[in-house]
């Protein structure tokens, strides 16, 4: 039963990644692209965790933690750049 649910979740988050790619390619403004990249990072974290459940290893926690941190930092840096034209003043 868990394997069916895992497959369903894989399909859902994979489709989500495709939607995000579409939004990165075709977007009216730069803020939409940054938002799509942030969502892409969140979906990638979910896919990593799902793969960790399927393989039964705890190796992927560290990878997903790093993804979460760097996704947040890069989004904030992009927004700072959009607001001020500079990241560290």
């Amino acid at each position, binding site marked *: *039963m*868990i394997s*069916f*649910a*895992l497959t*369903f*979740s*894989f*399909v*859902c*988050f994979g*489709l*989500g*990644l495709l*939607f*995000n790619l*579409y*939004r990165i390619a075709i977007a*009216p*403004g*730069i*803020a*939409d692209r*940054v*938002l*799509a990249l*942030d*969502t892409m990072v*969140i*979906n990638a*974290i*979910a896919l990593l*965790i*799902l793969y*960790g*459940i399927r393989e*039964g290893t*705890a190796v992927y*926690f560290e990878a*997903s*933690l790093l993804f*979460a*941190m760097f996704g*947040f930092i890069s*989004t*904030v840096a992009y*927004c*700072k750049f*959009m*607001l001020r034209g500079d990241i560290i003043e």
Partner: protein
Amino acid sequence: MPVILEILISLLLVSGGIFGLVGSFGLVKLPDTMTRLHAPTKASTLGVGGVLIASMIHFAAFGREFSFHELIITLFLFLTAPITAHFLAKATIHRDFRPKDLPATGRPVGWACFETQPKKTPAEK
């Protein structure tokens, strides 16, 4: 007992997948930038939170030992999602809006994206 846990894990996985898909679909479907901010920051965060909780229960029930690893990632994502949404909304106001399009703040100072902080008097310092 393991059957109940399996049902719980499967429910969390399926609901997490649905929420994640809805969040990403809202990014494509919704009409403008400010409404598009809502979908990923709320629905996607809830979806990935469901998957992380499912992973925690799975490793507690069928793995070797119980760990709080996933709870850390869940907490981190739930804390950072509002901050990114706030920053993106601020950047959108800064780039795409004009000061006269925005509603009045009702205070002596206008919107923070367009007006600088007023100089503090020596008494306030």
